[in-house]
């Protein structure tokens, strides 16, 4: 009797499984993210962008006639969790592509595992160049830090019509050094001149000496490539020295403290970032509307938009090669050119980084407002 029951059970299992296979097996997409812990804000916002994209694609009939299935693992903002999460997603859940993470540290942990398993991985906002250097299966949807240097160079030359730029670099920050190097190269290549270069260390409070030296060089624009606290203090002290030229900076400026600390001194400054929900390009506006409708009126963060684009870029590559097979999918992702995303037209370069437009924000009336999109 028992054996009879058992065989009936097995039979029914086979039946369900068979039926499932006929109704198109889902394409499994893995996502490892900090959904809890100190970086939870990034992980949660990314997940919302990814989910929105997957739901939209499924509503339109999925990819290659198969629905997408979303599998997420929480890495709890802890080092060491990413490797476990990614191993589980690959060996047990059999995902065909991996999304994540936000912090470079976490992406660097997961990347070797994806590389070894030949599963394409799309990092979301990990800007450290080392991430994609792990191997040819590792991509990123954001641009890398130094890329913003070229954006700032073009912006200073073409939009602010500057001929003379002064640089303030934080010497103990690789981010700031990288940005300044590219900015210097790009701006001089565009026929501009770097008239003064001054250095400081993160944590410094007094910049009057450097700014006095910069003032003597009479720049049109000053680029401060470090982070927001120092940037705000630099602006305050520059204004008190009578230096009233515009300041520009990278996404290290993006924090409410910039305006809180800088007050009037940061009015009329510009900084670059990935995405602005205020961008009035039609594709961005439509994305912001759909996102708000799906997530109860929330405004998308830059990482939400990056997550959203990542899903579309990878699924587009799947459609192009007609398979979810790792090596072929990898080649298709690597060949992506001018993919129209909400974070700008994305081209994957030979180092598997994204080349795309950056957004310049201007500080006006105590608020960072969208200024323009810049493609270097």
């Amino acid at each position, binding site marked *: 009797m028992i054996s009879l029951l058992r065989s009936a059970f097995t039979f029914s299992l086979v039946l369900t499984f068979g039926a499932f296979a006929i109704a198109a097996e889902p394409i499994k997409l893995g996502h490892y993210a900090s959904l809890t812990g100190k970086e939870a804000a990034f992980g949660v916002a990314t997940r919302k962008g990814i989910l929105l994209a997957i739901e939209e694609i499924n509503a339109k009939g999925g990819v290659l006639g198969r629905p997408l299935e979303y599998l997420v693992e929480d890495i709890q903002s802890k080092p060491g969790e990413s490797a476990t999460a990614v191993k589980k997603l690959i060996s047990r859940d059999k995902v065909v592509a991996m999304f994540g993470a936000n912090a470079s540290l976490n992406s660097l942990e997961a990347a070797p595992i994806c590389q070894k398993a030949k599963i394409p991985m799309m990092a979301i906002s990990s800007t450290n160049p080392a991430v994609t250097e792990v191997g040819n299966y590792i991509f990123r949807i954001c641009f890398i830090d130094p890329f913003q240097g070229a954006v700032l160079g073009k912006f200073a030359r073409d939009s602010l019509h500057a001929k003379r730029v002064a640089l303030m670099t934080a*010497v103990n920050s690789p981010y700031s050094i990288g940005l300044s190097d590219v900015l210097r190269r790009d701006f001089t290549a565009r026929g501009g001149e770097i008239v003064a*270069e*001054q*250095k*400081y*260390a993160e*944590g410094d*409070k*007094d910049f*009057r*000496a*450097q700014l*006095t*030296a910069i*003032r*003597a060089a009479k720049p049109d624009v000053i680029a401060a490539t470090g982070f927001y*606290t120092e940037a*705000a*203090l630099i602006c*305050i002290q520059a*204004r*008190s*020295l*009578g230096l009233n030229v515009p300041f520009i900076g990278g996404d290290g400026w993006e924090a409410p*403290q910039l305006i*809180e*600390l800088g*007050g009037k001194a940061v009015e009329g400054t510009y900084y670059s970032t990935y995405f602005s929900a205020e961008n009035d390009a039609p594709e961005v506006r439509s994305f912001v509307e759909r996102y708000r409708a799906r997530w109860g009126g929330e405004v998308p963060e830059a990482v939400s938009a990056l997550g959203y684009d990542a899903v579309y870029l990878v699924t587009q590559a799947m459609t192009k090669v007609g398979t979810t097979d790792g090596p072929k999918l990898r080649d298709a992702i690597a060949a992506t050119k001018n993919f129209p995303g909400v974070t700008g037209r994305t081209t994957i370069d030979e180092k598997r980084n994204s080349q795309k437009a950056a957004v310049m924000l201007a500080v006006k009336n105590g608020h960072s407002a969208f200024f323009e999109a810049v493609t270097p």
Partner: protein
Amino acid sequence: MSEFLQQLLNGLSLGAIYALIALGYTMVYGVLRFINFAHSDVFMVGAFIGYYVGKLVPEGTLWGGMIVLIASMVGCAILGMTIERLAYRPLRGAATLNVLITAIGVSLLLEYSGQVFFGAAPRTFPQIFPSANFSVGGLVISTNQLAVILVAVLLMIGLQFIVYRTKIGTAMRAVSLNPKAAQLVGVNNDVVISFTFGLGSALAAAGGILYALNYPSIDPLMGVMPGLKAFVAAVLGGIGNIPGAALGGLILGTVETFVNGSQWSTYKDAIAFAILIIILLFRPAGLLGKFTVEKV
């Protein structure tokens, strides 16, 4: 030329703050012969008291600013005296090293309880005094910079007056010269030492407010670097010597600013400390200090 004058002004206003903090180190050393490492954290607490009191008074008024300055000086004087009473007095008569380690402990206690109570993220210090910039020739002068120099000079004159023209000042000098003999002629050492801590801490609070006015981002670890520089300034001028501390502060601030404005700005601290080493090689007791052989 205008660049040189501007840098000189920048340097003097930075140096005036170092001098104010250095005075606290030097006074305590003069009386007790030990370095109060918690001094730089009293400086930080001064800035935070200013931050909270500054929210209660209207911004940009002279009287509001004075209230903040006085409240913070009084608050820190009480804090300084409490630290002395609880942490240092029980160790009086013990080896200097014990007191020194205790001072480091108090310093860490203040820094990390500051992170608990005030939060570790930097806060924006309000503009409590009215401020304006005016230019003379190519020189742009901000009232904040002038206020720093002015307040520092006034406080130093006041300090000099207290130490040399009042009864408590005479008692301080007596304790500094010989504590036992002072006690024999009827000086209450506890009161004098308590007063010294209160006075030094009040000066640190004033330094904290002036520093925060010029560099309006404050956090619980903000005292570490200025404190270290002020300690160097005190040694440079001759530790235990009040005009020496002021001179040391001004020299250090000016040198740092000039190096910072040149292309060697990365080496600003290295050059400032190298100067210290060179001066101590030639004048081991500091610029204005008197070299005394310690009697055993």
